């Protein structure tokens, strides 16, 4: 059979196309296999995707949010540089300011009054060895943040104190976070128990750390 010039050109184009496709498939195969140490990794990745439940995550965050917005957490995550005080979150008397490291300035450093433990008596300074605000270059403001804004902030490595997922999970176990439930006489506790808070925090994170709409 006579091969027409047009037909021949078509075959060559097909061949080129096939070579390009093979090349792309090979290269992408090589590339992706480079990120995989073994096949079990691929399985783990699939499992993680299946585990994400955005509804459960958002649900858990809304519980977390109630705690973060309670005076016991928010008072030390103010929008300004002066901490808040009391169940009504008024500006801290004596107007102590954050300072570079979050530990106050000059004769007005947090630990001058806030001892390693709570002081005795009604409305006396609560205490913890780590008592401080977030530092000046990472203010981690809670005050005035909507649920969505706060969830996005906590999930943002650049705004959450450079914490990855494991460190975020760990953070709920931090002794200063825990101190929110050791509030001293004359102060309301956060709306969830510490145990319920940690469970909600973990559930939110383990289901993808999804921000509410």
């Amino acid at each position, binding site marked *: 059979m006579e091969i027409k010039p047009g037909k021949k050109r078509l075959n060559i184009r097909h061949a080129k196309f096939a070579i390009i496709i093979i090349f792309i498939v090979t290269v992408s195969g090589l590339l992706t296999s480079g990120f995989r140490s073994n096949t079990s990794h691929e399985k783990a990745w699939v499992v993680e995707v299946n585990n994400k439940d955005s509804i459960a995550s958002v649900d858990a965050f809304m519980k977390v949010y109630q705690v973060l917005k309670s005076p016991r957490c928010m008072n030390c995550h103010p929008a300004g540089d002066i901490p808040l005080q009391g169940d009504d979150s008024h500006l801290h*008397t*004596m*107007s*102590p*300011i954050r300072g570079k490291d979050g530990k106050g*300035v*000059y*004769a*007005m*450093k947090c*630990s*001058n*009054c806030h*001892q*390693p433990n709570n*002081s005795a*008596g009604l*409305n*006396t*300074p609560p205490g913890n060895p780590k008592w401080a605000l977030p530092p000046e270059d990472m203010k981690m403001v809670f005050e005035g943040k909507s649920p969505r804004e706060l969830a996005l902030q906590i999930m943002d490595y650049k705004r959450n104190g450079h914490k990855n997922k494991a460190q975020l999970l760990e953070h709920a176990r931090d002794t200063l976070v825990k101190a929110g439930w050791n509030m001293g006489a004359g102060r309301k506790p956060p709306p969830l128990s510490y145990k319920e808070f940690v469970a909600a925090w973990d559930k939110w994170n383990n289901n993808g750390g999804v921000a509410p709409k």
Partner: protein
Amino acid sequence: MIKLNINNKNYELDIDPDTPLLWVLRDIIGLVGTKYGCGVAQCGACVVHLNGEAVRSCVTKISRAAGQNVITIEGLSENNDHPLQKAWVELDVVQCGYCQAGQIMSAAVLLRENKNPTDKDIELAMEGNICRCGTYLRIKKAIHLAAEMQRNGS
């Protein structure tokens, strides 16, 4: 037994570790320059230096001071000649005097960390020291004068 250093002297005290440092200073050691105002960290009358920081001795338990260095108004200078003490005398800052030991101890931390404080710096440092006689303006002036003396080495 609790060991600590107060005004460069070593002490060993057989005492309840929850005793406030202020009680130890005034009632046990007999250093009564530091005053009791409120007892709940609200007034600043009881400020002393714990390793150089202006802690409120009424809420600081003696256990926190164990093995540490405490300086009270009596130990701020050898001959009552800290620039703040000289400036205080020169400008006659004191009215009744009750708050003044705490005022000077707080101001001393400011001057150590900031050799040339502005009015704003002074306000930030001194907000926690209350003076019922209202000597605030003279205190501010005296801190400026003391800073100047300190810079001039006098």
